[in-house]
């Protein structure tokens, strides 16, 4: 079962390679990157603003990670404009 979240996380990626992320005070070490893709927002539904400034774009990573004994598959997402990371989904 997958659970949806939208919580801010901190990511450790010293030379571009993601090693770990921090969520709810726990550090999750990344074992493997399973997939990587991008999505753009629904620019046409924006209340205001101009599509020609570039649509909002996000990068998704599906990773296998664990904190101690608690592990699983996670989807984390980065807003490519602000650079902020968030947890998107957890598969138990």
């Amino acid at each position, binding site marked *: 079962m997958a659970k949806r979240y939208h919580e801010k996380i901190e990511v450790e990626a010293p030379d571009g390679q993601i090693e770990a992320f921090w969520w709810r005070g726990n550090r999750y070490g990344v074992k493997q990157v399973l*997939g*990587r*893709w*991008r999505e753009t927002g629904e620019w*046409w539904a924006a209340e205001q603003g101009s*599509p020609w*400034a570039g649509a909002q774009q996000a*990068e998704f990573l599906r990773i296998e990670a664990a904190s101690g004994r608690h592990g699983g598959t996670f989807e984390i997402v980065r807003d490519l404009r602000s650079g902020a990371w968030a947890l998107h989904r957890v598969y138990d």
Partner: protein
Amino acid sequence: MRPFVHLNVRSVYSFREGAIRLDELATATRAHGMPAVALTDRDTLAGAVRFTQACDANGITPIYGARLTVGDDPDPAKADERTMITVLARDDAGYANLCKLITAAHHNGERGDPCASRADVARYSRGLFGLLGPGSDVGRALEARRDDDARTYLRGWLEAFGFHRTRIEVATHLRPGDRGRIMRTLAFADENRVTAVATNAARSLSKADAFLGDVLDAMRNLVPIADHHRIDPTHEATLKTPDEMDALFGWRPDLLDESYAIADACSAHLRLGKIQVPNYPPGTARDPDARSLNEMLARRCIAGLARRGLANDPRARDLLEAELAMCARLGFAGYFLTISDLVARVKRMGVRCACRGSAAGSLIVYLTGISEVNPVEHDLVFERFMNPHRTTELPDIDLDVESARREDVYREILGAFRAVDPDGPPRVACVAMVDTYRARGAIREVGKALGLPQGEVDVVAKSFPHISASGIRAALERLPELQRSSLNLGQLEMLFGVAERLDGFPRHLALHPSGILIGRDDLFRVTPLERSAAGFPMSQFDKDDIEALGLLKLDVLGVRMLSSLTHATREIARATGEQVDLDTIDREDPATFDLICASRTLGTFQIESPGQRELLAKLEPRRFKDLITEISLFRPGPVRSDMIGPYLLRRHGHARAAYAHPEVRRFLAETFGVIVYHEQVMRAISAVTGCDLGYADLVRRRLDRADTLDEIEAWFFAKGRANGWRDGEIGPLWREVASFASFGFCKAHAAAFAVPTYQSSWMKTHHPAAFFAGILTHEPGMYPRRTLIDDARHEGVPNLPLDINASGATYAVERTPDGTLGVRIALQHVDGISTDEISAIVAAREERPFTGLADLCRRARISRPTVEALIHAGALDAFGRRRDQLLLVSEFWAGRAPKPGSTQQELVLRESVTEFGLRAYTDAEKVRAELEVLGVDASRHVVSFYTDVLRALGATPSRELRKQRQGARVMVAGVKVASQTPAVRSGQRIIFITLDDGTGLSDATVFESVQEHCAYTVFHSWLLVVRGTLRKTGAGRGGISINAERAWDLSQLAREHKAGSLDIDALWTEGVAEIEEAERARVAARRGRGAVPVVPDGAGPLVPIGERQPRYRPRTGEVDEAGAPAAAAAVPLPARRGPIEGEPAAAGAPRKLWHASGGSAGA
């Protein structure tokens, strides 16, 4: 940086799919440091020439290709089974095959749904790379993990392209699962020993543009944008830099290297800027050598000398020799021979055909029968047409043919070149025209794509075609229409922002209305051919592309006047047995020039507009050459630069012609020392500087460019002095040359146009009934039919009413009982009648005449509205009263009387008609019915119903205006037949109107000072009374015009008059005091300046800018009078057959019955 080349790129020419503009593609490719780029549009090469030009300008190598749709079942329902492959031309053979493949794709299946078969690909694969990407059958099978299927598909492509030219294409737009898919694909490639290559399947230039892809997808699929059916959700299909590509595929550098290797192997390059004269005769295996072609042309020209009676004219022989030498030097012999054959073919079809433009200046063109203008007689110059200094493009020949036969001519020309090998590929094709998004259309489609309410978007689109996204806030404050809109600011900004980016995007390929491309035998290797809606082969290139490719393009224009003249000559032959050959009539016939000088030129070619008629009256043409001058002078340039004034003064002996130098007299004497023609400018430059006429033409073309004028002036003086001219001689000539050069007119073109102008005037003079039958049938000019019908009345040609047993499909000449020839109103203009119904009526009547309503219904089988329209307009008057017959029709269709066609019906009918005994139509009702059904008041003039009120007002009939003195205050009335609001010299808006009161036409001019009082009425009323002062122009039977002061609606005045509430004195005195005060001030001011008015009327010759050829027809529907508020422009139509009392037009115009135009022709 690792080298990379984009091999999969869709531009805006992938209609509604790609968003990259070609110039941006080339500049971005260079900016990113890539040496080459491929263009792979969807089943088209329409962008190939512009792509080449953009690449050449940026120093990068173009690679030609296409994203090709392949499928073995052309049925659109099976579109899912189709596959996409990318093909790239490795060499010229590959480019030729690319053309053939795309042609094949467009000839399979439905039009607009191209699809090449696998067999086509196999047949035309030589020289092509085949790239099998994620959209190919191989890619899709791999995605679905059906590797066995993928192998089977791959084998098929390998058979076509071989290992050397087959590639597995990988690309990622960073979507979920991409990595796994790519890994599997690469493993598959390795396993099958096929080389793989990386692309980015780009379709937008950058991320900032990527949203356009979503918009285009939504437009193409006709659905609003929504997340669940986005085709490209990641916005990664951009023209990435080599570094960005390295970030994606750096782990397999061979994929990037391979793109470079393929680019390096591609050598095809379109050759631009080199003339490709069609081979002659077509279909020969090898061209005859140049010498024998030149001899062939020379022989044909010498035969032409004899035929044209010029065999002993030394000037003609010398000129021919010079032209033939030039032609041999430029290698044009095959070109002239081809066109000469073609014109001969068209003429053999019995279609009138004339050549227009500068080509008429060439003697070869005259002698080979292409043109009917003798350049020796009119002292024309061939260098204007065939210039030895311009060798990158073929000279233009434009042919005018009868509008009604244009498609036949197309078929003949296209067939003529096919005939050599009926199954062979065509070497003649129609030219494409790229239809682009314009603001209004873009807003509508974007609104739909964004899912905005269509009604609201429509309002916005209509109101603001020219607004920019950045101006939207300001517009919101300024314009009430936007405030009322339910769209919020964000939505409006989005709408305009997106539409603005789409502005100018190609939308689809359309058929050019007149262009025909005549290629060489290998045309099918140069351009892909589509099929037009009418089934003609159509090149994917437009006329600019074709010019750039150096191919021959012919413009074949349909001219309604030519159809009118043909109709007229046939009617003469049919009604009287006389055979008229318009090409051999006397071109100096005094009676014809009497008609022209009297400005009785309504309906004739070129010289029928109010401004033209005014100029005719002033200029008084008496010779054919005067007509050439008149046509040349009636243009915005000459008017603005006061060319007409000095010419007229000298022509009529009020001023003396002056010549700067005796040599100048030779070519300026014909226009009394005034420069009118391009040819004169060329001769002047040549005379002073000693250069040849071809070079002089190049100089002439640069004269309207301010940046080089000083340079040319210095050269002009230096050369002149060296040739022994004094500065006092060069100076005045230079001033004339410099100021008139860009305004002058090509005399050859004017001479070509003067021919139908003269022929139509001659026809009107000598065969008026046939003339009117011709122009009523084909409506070549600017005036509505009712004006032409009325003009026929004035010219003594009776109008014979619509009659079911006499009216034909077209207007016919018919002898009336008193022996005069009249015009019978035709069925073609009966409101709502179909061509099938017309044929049915004519065919049934040829068996025997109709005996009654039931007989008509039974034998012709026409619809109820048509039967009613015919009765209403009086076509069945012979069988009874109109009301009775209409009632009977409604009984039929209500089922209360036997249906037409049943056996007992005719009996019932005969009795019924007499039984009802309803009231007959009054005269007014008859006229109103005619206006409703036919758009003409044939039986009686509309204004004749207003004689009472006009008499009471003291209005002057048009016929009597001439008896009034200059400056007299008069009232004129009539039906508005034309209104024009051209831009004029001073920048003020001037409205021209022409009224028709049944005794003739009156022209009135509404200047800006009184428009506040008049404009609304003038634009919105159909029947007008205008008060103003009379001004006469020209001598003798010169023109007459009214300077309007006030205008009223005639039917409103009539109602007030009937009610006894009309204050006539007030109408005559309103505003007079202030107008006279203003006039005194104006005259005083002018006297103070001491300026001499060019034209004695003080207003200047008012010529509509851009009014050149009468393309215009009365509009139906949207009225577009400049200055009229858009919302109020539509004239309310009265209810059909409403109650009528006394006057036929109480509720406004029954149809759009007048001509209105703004600044541009064709309104």
